[in-house]
């Protein structure tokens, strides 16, 4: 791998690391999501600096040009991040649905002045399971 592409790769990885950290510092990015980006950047950094590891890795999986192995690793991380985001978006969509439903029910209740529903209480079962107290 040429030294120019090596420098470019190192620079890019460092840029990602610093950028992600800065986003966390400014509260634009939660630590949970920053960590995956930082892991990706760190691996890229290690592979870019440690040429020998990269060439060992690329010959092990049969990639002729080591720099291509770097791209493969980067691509793998991008796919992983995308999957991670899909999972997050799914969870957010679920939470959003629940919030919308709860808000609509609450709105209806305040409009009609209906009191909050009482929870069905089963005092016997409570007494069974909690003998002390």
């Amino acid at each position, binding site marked *: 791998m040429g030294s120019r592409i090596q420098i470019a790769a190192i620079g890019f990885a460092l840029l990602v690391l610093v950028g992600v*950290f800065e986003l*966390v*510092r400014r*509260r*634009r990015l*939660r*630590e*949970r999501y*920053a*960590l995956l980006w*930082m892991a990706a950047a760190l691996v890229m950094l290690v592979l870019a600096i440690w040429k020998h590891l990269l060439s060992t890795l690329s010959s092990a999986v049969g990639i002729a040009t080591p720099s291509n192995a770097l791209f493969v690793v980067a691509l793998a991380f991008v796919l992983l991040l995308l999957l991670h985001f899909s999972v997050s978006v799914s969870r957010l969509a*679920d*939470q959003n649905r*629940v*919030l919308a439903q*709860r808000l609509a029910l609450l709105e209806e209740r305040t409009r009609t002045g209906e009191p909050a529903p009482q*929870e069905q*209480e089963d*005092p016997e079962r*409570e007494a069974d*399971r*909690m003998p*002390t*107290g």
Partner: protein
Amino acid sequence: MRDDAFNHRNSGREPTFPSGVERGSGRLLAVVPAYNEAGAVAQVVRALRERAPDFDVIVVDDGSTDDTATRARAAGATVVKLPFNLGIGGAVQAGFVYALEHGYDYVAQVDGDGQHEPAELEKLLDAMLSGPGVDMVCGSRFITADYRYPAPISRRTGIHVFAFVLTRIVGQPISDPTSGFRLYNSRAIALFARDYPHDYPEVEAILMVHAHRLRMAEVPVRMHVRDSGRSSIGKTHSLYYMIKVSLALLAGLMRRRAVVEPGEPAPVSSAH
């Protein structure tokens, strides 16, 4: 307010649990975050009402899928039921916002799993009222010489590493930074109602208190082994916990202010 409490504290020491009326120390709220703690939460609420009767009790049900909320209500607590799981940070912060909206002067945080002893709240309150300007009091498992805390070695190592780092950052000995047995005054309540860490909040909260020139104290307490339920930190999450909190501490150190102040830009406004 704090001076009043301090003066009153000097006027006489009572051996029994201080009555809010006698000490004039303001309204007290115990916030109990609980996530799927149906087996323990009722006992926690009852213990609080028996052994810390001056505290109103609010259980924040963090989106439990079992009947945690029903049992807590049956045991006599006010229950705020979150529509889905926010994590311990979001649940506790809901308690701070509740305390702020209802004008409480002190908030105690007591875990919903029964590992904290409500009678020990008296020690926390004593430390809060005896030292001028103490805004947060943490119960520590590690101050007494004969402590026994049966936790896996990895967990204890993590706690002590953060204790070491925090001690150097804040310039006062911190022995148990992950303890969730805490008492906050109105300044700390207002701060954390604005901004409180998400995932594993306790360690970062200490840094936030320090960055905002609030003061904290630690008092020795005993903790029980968990009765039921699961810790919020599983074995597989220990490594994530360490890394996440380390990153959060580092980012927190690089911030001019650890908490969003009024007028500063923030992605989400939590309270008010």
